């Protein structure tokens, strides 16, 4: 078992005819994911990889293929519309890879999706990987083996780094969820931690955070109160200067708030083992499992 998706999950790719959309749809298919449809407005009727039908609208795609999860690769200025379209067409889980979506667009989208009860992962995220089963997004499939560790992260490549280090030590992953690096996003640490806590196949959780905001601090509170499984964490940005946006829109220390130190302190107070560098996470996990 895993969280959010499994090998039978029927996946739609919005923006499938774009460069990145097509590239990653191919990788997803190669990994074994059930990519049943693509959507690019104005390109309905095309085929991608000679096997994935492209539709003009999500509604048509869902009707024809029963897709339930949509991975969004459309450019930032069309991404809000794409997410709303997916939600209205009956998609239950949206995974938004797109980076650079205006924050006010995201606040509207998140409000609407919450109302509709549609889950969102991202935006500006690498997506979801269930090793050995399926992947929805851009996480390289070859850096993880199935196993008992759930991974949740605000970062992209940093997560791969950690997964790769785990793989090198033979530690497998139940599900990796990249919740994204934007200040306003869908599922947060707490929601994903809760899913991992409830997932019988997950025995430990890796939480990868970074500077900016208070999500790690709130996750620490949640862990202290509700998590029985061990959590290992890493927080990036100890050397980041304040007031500067470190790549991710959400990675910024503002008004002295959201520093790595404050997050590490909160996590350690919740009995979370905090690694000093990404590869140390694997070492700690090896000692725990």
């Amino acid at each position: 078992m895993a969280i959010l998706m499994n090998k039978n999950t029927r996946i739609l790719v919005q923006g499938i005819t774009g460069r990145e959309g097509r590239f990653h749809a191919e990788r997803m298919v190669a990994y074994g994911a059930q990519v049943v449809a693509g959507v690019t407005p104005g390109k309905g009727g095309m085929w991608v990889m000679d096997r994935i039908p492209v539709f003009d609208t999500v509604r048509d795609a869902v009707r024809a293929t029963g897709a339930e999860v949509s991975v969004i690769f459309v450019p930032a200025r069309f991404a809000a519309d794409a997410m709303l379209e997916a939600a209205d067409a009956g998609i239950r889980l949206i995974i938004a890879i797109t980076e650079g979506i205006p924050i006010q667009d995201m606040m509207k989208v998140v409000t609407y999706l919450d109302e509709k009860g549609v889950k969102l992962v991202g935006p500006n995220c690498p997506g979801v990987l269930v090793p050995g089963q399926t992947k929805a997004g851009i996480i390289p499939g070859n850096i993880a083996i199935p196993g008992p560790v759930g991974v949740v992260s605000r970062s992209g490549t940093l997560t791969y780094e950690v997964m790769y280090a785990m793989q090198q030590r033979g530690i497998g992953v139940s599900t990796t969820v990249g919740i994204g690096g934007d200040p306003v996003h869908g599922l947060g640490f707490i929601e994903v931690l809760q899913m991992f806590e409830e997932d019988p196949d997950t025995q430990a959780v890796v939480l990868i955070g970074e500077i900016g905001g208070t999500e790690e601090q709130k996750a620490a509170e949640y862990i202290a109160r509700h998590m029985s499984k061990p959590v290992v964490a890493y927080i990036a940005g100890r050397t980041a200067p304040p007031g500067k946006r470190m790549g991710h829109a959400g990675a910024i220390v503002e008004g002295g708030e959201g520093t790595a130190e404050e997050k590490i302190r909160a996590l350690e107070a919740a009995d979370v083992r905090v690694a000093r560098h990404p590869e140390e996470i694997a070492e700690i996990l090896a000692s725990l499992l």
Partner: protein
Amino acid sequence: MKLHEYQTKQIFADHGIPIPKGWVAETPEEAARIAQELGGPVAIKAQVLVGGRGKAGGIKLARTPEEAREVAERILSMTIKGLPVRKVLVEEAADIAQEIYLGITNDRAAKRPVVMASSEGGVDIEEVARRSPEKIVRAHIHPLLGLQAYQIRDLALGIELPREFWSSFIAFARALAQVYQKYDATLVEINPLVITRQGNLLALDAKLVVDDNALYRHPELEKFRDLDAEDPTEVEARQYGLSYIKLDGTVGCMVNGGGLAMATMDIIKLFGGEPANFLDIGGGANAEKVARAMRLILADPKVKVVLINIFGGITRCDEVARGILAAMEEVKPDIPMVVRLVGTNAEEGRALLQEAAMETATTLTEAAQKAVRLAYGQ
């Protein structure tokens, strides 16, 4: 993108938010002329995009046009926190009865904008937040519904605003929320919002920060961009889709992904080195972008070694390798490089780099240790 006070006030005025009468001046003579035109005591305010202008002497009163000329001359020759003052705002000095605070920003945790008001205006609001948090009252804006009058009344009650000002405060706050929404702001702030002795509300200061991701919706703001306020290298980097921040160390970093770039900086520090920069080449970086990034790093004379850490996801390692080779070809650097490629098309990338004489590493730890060692000339 931060806007200057005078630019923000222009937007405020267009949306019905009352501001003091005034104009911007680039010379002492212009400042004197404006003071003459305004015909009374004026405030002369340095237009620089940093906090703490007042303390630095960038805001002064002048009673006469002659005094305005002198004051403006002094302020226009200042450099505040490294930024030259090129413009001053000359405006009617307000007859202040009370100073309050009114601002809107995004509450990340609540996933919606939050309006903040305080009876303590004119002072550092973060200071107020620390010292007496109960003095700041808040109302969240429903992203689809917008700010409602009743919420503003709640704020007015919360800061004990006298009732005679409620209706103008409601109009004021609604207009501010409109500006916030229309301009895709991440911060809009009036500190202080003054109540004059004549009983009017007035935005005495004005701050507006616009979401960079939404600038495509606001081409009219492009003319407001102040390149002075930004590091030229950072500006150049942004033009190429790179995210670059200069630091003080000796280990140049080129990484894909913000989180990994920070982690790379952190591990350099952990192993005794000092990162020279933050540089995220972004997702799906192509060869040209990588070459640009390399040139940016090498332009910093303090850099003694470059650590390239690429974990391929959207970014393909072979493209990165091609970019590195192109940059090497052109720049012909004489400092060592440590390269680590993992993930999508990593093997192809490594194959391309085989002929170039570069240190390679398998793990991040190994890469960082090698880079630090090289930085110290070992």
